[in-house]
């Protein structure tokens, strides 16, 4: 599929901001089953410094600083991405039993497995816990293949937890999501990641977009899309396998990856520190347009 994604973030401040420093992870990834054709930032007012780099996880990071007083800040990223469907057949090695994955990660026998260790450790938003381990063991029965068990875990999260956009915010701790059994995509991703880590399996967070389809017979509204998040589990010799617990499916060619990390904190789309500004509000609009 070929998509044009327009992601606009607009801040309004009650008093002018004199200086701001920002870091954005809004450039779609290039690689795997997607190709980034182009990605262009438009920032208003225009920044004094605009700088791009690749972070520890391989994500493209954009730093910019606006040094003129401003009451609004608008960041628009327009990207064009071509995605491929995931292979219909599971790759060789995907039938590895989950205990074997755990043992190979523990043994850390090759350079790649050694650097993967941090995906087993807890991260601030997705830390292992005994209750999560118990929850996970219902899917991860002895000898079960990691793919099958993870798919089952995804399916159970989808069934056991209510999708509720009013229930959480970025700062909702996992414990509350667990207790109240409701949340949004990032909560479900964090939950699955924490369960996998409780079983000593390497798990990571993926942020991106998902093409949404309008209800039958209705036109698609521009800007009605949103950022999305899902998770991935690592298989030795195979690589990262992705799962979307919010929609109970493995990502398809309708999924566009922006960034990968240990949890949301590593891939926050836009963060910043401002001087002044008083109170602020923020509007985000995302439009994923299918160009085919």
């Amino acid at each position, binding site marked *: 599929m070929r998509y044009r994604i327009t992601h606009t*973030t607009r801040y309004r401040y009650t008093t002018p901001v004199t*200086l701001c420093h920002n870091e954005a992870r809004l450039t779609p990834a290039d690689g795997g089953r997607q190709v980034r054709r182009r990605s262009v930032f438009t920032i208003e007012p225009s920044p004094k*410094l605009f700088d791009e780099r690749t972070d520890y996880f391989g994500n493209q990071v954009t730093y910019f600083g606006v040094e003129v007083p401003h009451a609004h800040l608008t960041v628009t990223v327009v990207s064009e991405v071509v995605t491929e469907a995931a292979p219909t057949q599971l790759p060789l090695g995907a039938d590895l039993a989950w205990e074997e994955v755990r043992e190979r990660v523990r043994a850390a026998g090759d350079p790649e497995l050694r650097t993967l260790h941090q995906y087993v*450790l807890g991260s601030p938003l997705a830390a292992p816990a005994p209750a999560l381990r118990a929850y996970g063991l219902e899917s991860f029965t002895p000898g079960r293949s990691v793919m099958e068990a993870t798919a089952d875990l995804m399916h159970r999260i989808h069934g056991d937890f209510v999708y509720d*956009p009013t229930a959480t915010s970025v700062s909702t701790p996992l414990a509350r999501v667990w207790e109240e059994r409701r949340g949004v995509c990032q909560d479900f991703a964090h939950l699955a990641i924490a369960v996998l880590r409780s079983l000593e399996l390497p798990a990571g967070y993926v942020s991106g977009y998902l093409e*949404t389809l309008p209800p039958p017979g209705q036109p698609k509204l521009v800007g009605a899309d949103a950022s999305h998040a899902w998770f991935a589990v690592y298989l030795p010799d195979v690589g990262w396998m992705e799962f979307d617990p919010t929609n109970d499916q493995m990502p398809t060619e309708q999924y566009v990856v922006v960034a990968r990390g240990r949890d949301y904190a590593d891939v926050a789309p836009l963060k*910043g*520190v*401002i001087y002044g500004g008083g109170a602020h509000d923020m509007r985000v609009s995302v439009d994923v347009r299918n160009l085919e």
Partner: protein
Amino acid sequence: MSQQASAPSGALVAASYAETMGPFDELCTPAGAADGPLRAHWKRLLGAFQQLGGHDLEARRQEARRLFRENGVSYSVTSDGSPGERPFELDPVPYLVPADDWARIESGLDQRARLLDAILKDLYGPRHLLRGGMVPPSLIFRHAGFLLPADGALLAEGHALTLYAADVVRDREGRFRVVSDRTQAPAGAGLALETRIASSRILPNLIRTTHVHRLARFFRLLRDHLAARAPHQKLDPRIVVLAGGVDDPSYFDHAYLASYLGFPLVEGPDLTVRDGRLWLRTIEGLKLVDGVVRRVADRLCDPLELDPASQVGIPGLLQTMRRGEVAMVNPIGAGVLENPGLLPFLPRICRQFLGEELQLDSAPTWWCGSSEGLSHVLAHLHELVIKRIDRAGGSVWGGSLDAGALAEWRDRLRADPEAWVGQAPAAEATTPALVQGQLTPWRAVTRCFVSASDEDFVVMPGGFTRVTPPGEIAGGLSAGLQGVCKDTWVLAADTERHLILWPTAVAEPRQSILESLPSRAAESLYWVGRYAERAEYHTRLARTALRRFQDSRDYGDPSDTGAVAILLRALKVLATGQNGEGAPGTLGGVDFVETTLLETVRDASLEGSLAWTFRRFEAAALAVRDRWSADTWRVVDDIGEALDGDPGFAPSGLAALEATLDRLVAALMSFTGLTMESTTQEHGWRFLMIGRRIERARNLVGLLQATVLREAGDGVEYALLEGLLAANESVMTHRRRYRAALDIGSAVQVLLLDPANPRSLAYQVLGLEQLVAALPREPGQRGMSADQRALLEASTRVRLAEARELATPGIAKGPDAHRRLRLASFLEDVDGCLERASEALDQSYFTHVEPTQQLVAVSLDVGDPVRREPGGE
């Protein structure tokens, strides 16, 4: 047998020395050694100390204590004005390191610095160590100091690690071992200098004749190296010392280092990132910064990329470092090396990275993340120090735990082994420490410092040595920088002696002080001036009231009593800031006078009291600690002593209170004198003087408003005017001008309008005009600035005023009868001008850093999930 197998005789060495010394002792060889009990390098010095005797040495310890306090080593107040800790005391007997031992330490630390530098660059670069399995992944990934945002942000060329410190001890065989490494913002280099200065003051002859290595060269090389790394202003680099503020326990160390290196001491709000570069806010605008000697922990450096809650960091700082726009010492992320779990792996890494054998052993350490390490630590817990790999939460000495606590610790280690190490307490050797006049074997740990130089690393020939009694080994040595310390004397080999020039001044001439004044420093200096003047003004006023009161009791003259009531009321008005005019009141007796005076002088909790004002003065002075000479700081200390340790606090202590006030006036006057005579008259001095003049002028205005706006009866008014002249040091001026004739007109002339009286309003206003005229102005500014306009108006009013006219009451009858309306409006107008001037100065020159806040995009998943076929699951 001529050789005795016992400790050297002499009362100085404790009789039990030989029995209590460790398996290795710095002073004595083991009992029965053929070459006698005393080590060669100690012979001459011990003789010298024995000549001095224990009593004299204890006296020198007291002298050192005084020096430390005066120089601020053990003196700190916190930003809220409460007294801080008094952490240090100097043992006058130095820690001696013979030349051959030093050569081993020096070479070993040089190698260790090269090794750690290589590890640092690897961990934030190619990560061969991790990929190749040379260190277990969890040892690095579990460490809170491994900062992912710093990945790839270190300079690829040259040294990444610039300033490194190692805590070194001697083990039971006398070999040196490193207990821990400090790489983020190593503290203690300033303390090493300060102990050297104190020890050369208390043992001047001894240190001169002993051929001790000097420290100055180390700091000169460090400074040269920092300058050479400046990315922008190569010829005249601007390098700052970034400190965490006066509440940081190491603040003295930071301030001392800054002042010694000649770099401005700054805090987070003094700096700002623009255009990807780092800038210092000064009274002349933003100035480009080339280098930062960082004393703020890694994690707190940048709220954009690191800890968002940090109040001491600078948003964007990591980006400036990543871009190579600023030389960061040490680089953000260097804390990853402060990991005792790395110690067991160092010998192997050293062979791999440097192709060398590790020269200096570490204290034996076992990382619990390996199964052998864990089982060793579990089995030997009672004889190990338990530490976290990332220094969080200090350390625990297993030997101090009972059976229950040991079992709890074993569970804790088993539950999370990767986070812990066990370390043998390697400091088993002893060294002579002066304890109650006798040399007693104690244990020592020396913090050594290493700096990158252009080619290589250099090791400071000396260090900061702490000693503890043998029983306290683990807790004492791992605790913070406090307790008893020693100067570290590295003895020169015969061949080096000619190189050591002593006693050439320890301090090097500082770099040119053409630095632009940081705005926050300007503001602090201004407030130092204001609070110092306010304290002095209130002290004089209180003293005047007290003396008048004593007169009134001695002579029983009701005029005195009336005047005292007005003066006391004025004192309260000035102190508490309430607006009011003095009406003739009655005096409520001795109790009332005492209560009022004691309260306004001693009650630090009362805002505006003298004690409160002094605390504010002290806090403002501390914020620019690097700008004061030792003499000036001693005076600050004296003022604190006068307020703290004085019997004037006793309820019946009016006489003692007078002595306190006399002492305070004297101390405050010496502070004034020092700042007048010993401070370079550049912008910093100007802000101090501006603060002083504004404060004096406004106090004078306030005092007259509170006392003479209403005519008092003749007798009372005369006594009152006498009191006002005395409180304003203007009795002599008045006498020269008017002889004994004193009335409101002559008093107004002398106190308000006489431009030659340094206590008059006219003198302050005219002085202020000159001071602000010399301040830097925005380029291209036309005409007068707001502060200049306000002061011109004030000085014009003062010049045009006529004393007799001001003194005349306006209306004879009604509610305003006997009220001096012209004087009232004159005072009000001038005060308004002064207020406007000070506001304008504040706006133009002081830091107005707006509060920062975090923007976080809360944009996830507000749309619906993909619609599914109903019942499709």
